[in-house]
């Protein structure tokens, strides 16, 4: 065999391996309908054995850690992290427009939900919440920057009311937001929230009621800064974005570099929130698998209410995720031979997980955002009686590849952020590398779990 053709064959093999690796990581794109509501996304058919599929995904994350650890120049890492430009703040007019847009969207959501069509496909309520907000707006929060505090109509409504200004209980910290986020995803899983405009409207009104009540008791800033799950979620996603909020105004940084700053994570409760953001994706996917049906069937058969089984699975799963993450951070104390407190390590490494969460969110929602945005625009022109035929953009297949790239980019970004954080924490570069062992194992495990879910034939959650 001549050298040329052999080289070409090797190259072909290598390319196919690289593509397989990408595809594997990325079919996690399809993992889990996600807390996105648009369930029933088609799942990739996997042609390699499951164990190989899982091993490849884990290996790609592990290999990217090894590659990142080859970068040992402190000054270079710091330069990448510190690069930035100050940006002018948004003008008053822009801010008023954003707030007006938010309030108008909320008003249309409620009115169309109460009096508009009851089918999901042409309901302005469903489209505003799942396409306009969950797909497009959340996407913009981590790709550009988080504008939710300005847009947030719930905050705007709450601001108009007087407040008792009771001191927010310090010890609760972010736990109410964790509970709220888990509750929202729980409701999304056990009810047809994405298909029933009336039910969705009830949820929006309920959320509005809770937000207003919380703000009246504790004050708007305390409530939305600590306890409100939606504000906290968007704030967390916004940390991934290139435009970040600092004390001196807006600042442009390299994407994801805001995650090396953990000043906003000031306790185990905030670590708990970050873990919850990562966990809900997995939960939403897991309850659609056959494995979950097998676990739940005997319990439901024995007379345990299905809702209780789902709730227990959520609490146990979340506890497990949190315990595993805290254990991986604690492991850094041993592997890096350091006296930094375990809590400090857990706090500093936690934000890196958000890059992964953002990657999965983009993969799940990009196609929805593109294909249904025209639908949303047309339905908004007449929310109460939408035209009979609403358009939808035909999304080309390569958009799936963008999702794949996003999942991969999220993982790589997370590995890099952990690397930069470790270099900031430890004077010895070997310490910095070794401190990441635990977090890397956690990331590998998370990838493999996500891939396992995606490799199962999925469907709607059973028994509910």
């Amino acid at each position, binding site marked *: 065999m001549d050298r040329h053709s052999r080289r070409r064959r090797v190259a072909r*093999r*290598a390319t*196919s*391996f690289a593509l*397989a*690796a990408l595809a594997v990581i990325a079919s996690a794109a399809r993992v889990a309908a996600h807390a996105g509501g648009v369930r029933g996304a088609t799942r990739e058919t996997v*042609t*390699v*054995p499951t164990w*190989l599929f899982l*091993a*490849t995904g884990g*290996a790609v994350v*592990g*290999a990217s850690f*090894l*590659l990142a*650890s*080859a970068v*040992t120049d*402190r000054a270079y890492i*710091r330069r990448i*992290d*510190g690069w*930035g430009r100050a940006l002018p703040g948004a003008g008053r007019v822009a801010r008023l427009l954003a707030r007006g847009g938010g309030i108008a969207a909320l008003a249309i959501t409620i009115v169309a939900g109460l009096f508009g069509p009851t089918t999901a496909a042409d309901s302005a309520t469903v489209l505003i919440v799942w396409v306009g907000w969950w797909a497009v707006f959340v996407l913009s929060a981590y790709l550009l920057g988080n504008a939710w505090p300005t847009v947030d109509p719930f905050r705007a409504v709450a601001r108009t009311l007087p407040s008792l200004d009771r001191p927010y209980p310090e010890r609760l910290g972010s736990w109410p937001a964790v509970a709220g986020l888990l509750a929202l995803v729980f409701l999304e899983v056990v009810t047809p929230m994405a298909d029933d405009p009336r039910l969705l409207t009830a949820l929006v009104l309920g959320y509005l009621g809770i937000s207003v009540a919380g703000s009246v008791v504790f004050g708007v800033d305390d409530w939305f800064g600590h306890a409100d799950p939606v504000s906290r979620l968007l704030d967390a996603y916004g940390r991934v974005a290139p435009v970040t909020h*600092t*004390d*001196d105004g807006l600042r442009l940084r390299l994407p994801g570099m805001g995650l*090396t*700053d*953990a*000043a906003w*994570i*000031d*306790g185990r409760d905030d670590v708990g929130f970050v873990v919850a953001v990562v966990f809900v994706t997995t939960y939403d996917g897991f309850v659609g698998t056959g494995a979950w049906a097998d676990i739940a069937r005997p319990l439901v058969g024995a007379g345990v209410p299905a809702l209780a089984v789902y709730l227990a699975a959520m609490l146990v799963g979340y506890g497990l995720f949190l315990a595993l993450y805290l254990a991986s951070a604690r492991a850094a104390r041993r592997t890096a*031979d*350091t*006296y*930094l*407190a*375990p*809590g*400090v390590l857990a*706090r*500093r490494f936690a934000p890196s997980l958000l890059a992964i969460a953002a990657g999965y969110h983009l993969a799940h929602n990009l196609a929805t955002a593109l294909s249904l945005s025209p639908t949303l625009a047309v339905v908004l022109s007449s929310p109460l009686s939408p035209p009979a035929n609403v358009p939808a953009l035909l999304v080309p297949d390569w958009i799936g590849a963008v999702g794949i790239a996003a999942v991969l980019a999220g993982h790589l970004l997370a590995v890099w952020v952990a690397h*930069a954080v470790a270099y*900031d*924490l*430890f*004077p*010895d*570069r*070997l*310490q910095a*590398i070794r401190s990441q062992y635990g977090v890397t194992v956690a990331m590998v495990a998370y990838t493999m779990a996500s891939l396992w879910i995606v490799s199962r034939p999925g469907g709607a959650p059973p028994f509910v």
Partner: protein
Amino acid sequence: MTDAKPAGDGSPTGTDAHDTTADPYEVPPDTTAVACPRCGRPFARERHRDLHLGVDHRDLDDDERAAYEDAREAETDELRRFRIVSLGTLVLLYFGFLFLYAVAA
């Protein structure tokens, strides 16, 4: 890590101003830590302390400077070993998977 913070000021919590009550260090009771003479940060090994002095503090005296240079040399040697091992692992991973894909897929 924000720009406002001088590069590597030795504070492990960065700009973490909220959690000033909790001690960022936790030294196991039955061990003696090597403390930094400037900021008191405890370390498990002298090498970590020496490197910390060079990385996070200015104006070292001659002894500290020499200790830093030595520690830095040892660190660089160990880094080189780690790089060789990690390169080997990457090669193994790559060809291992190439082989697995050829056989199993």
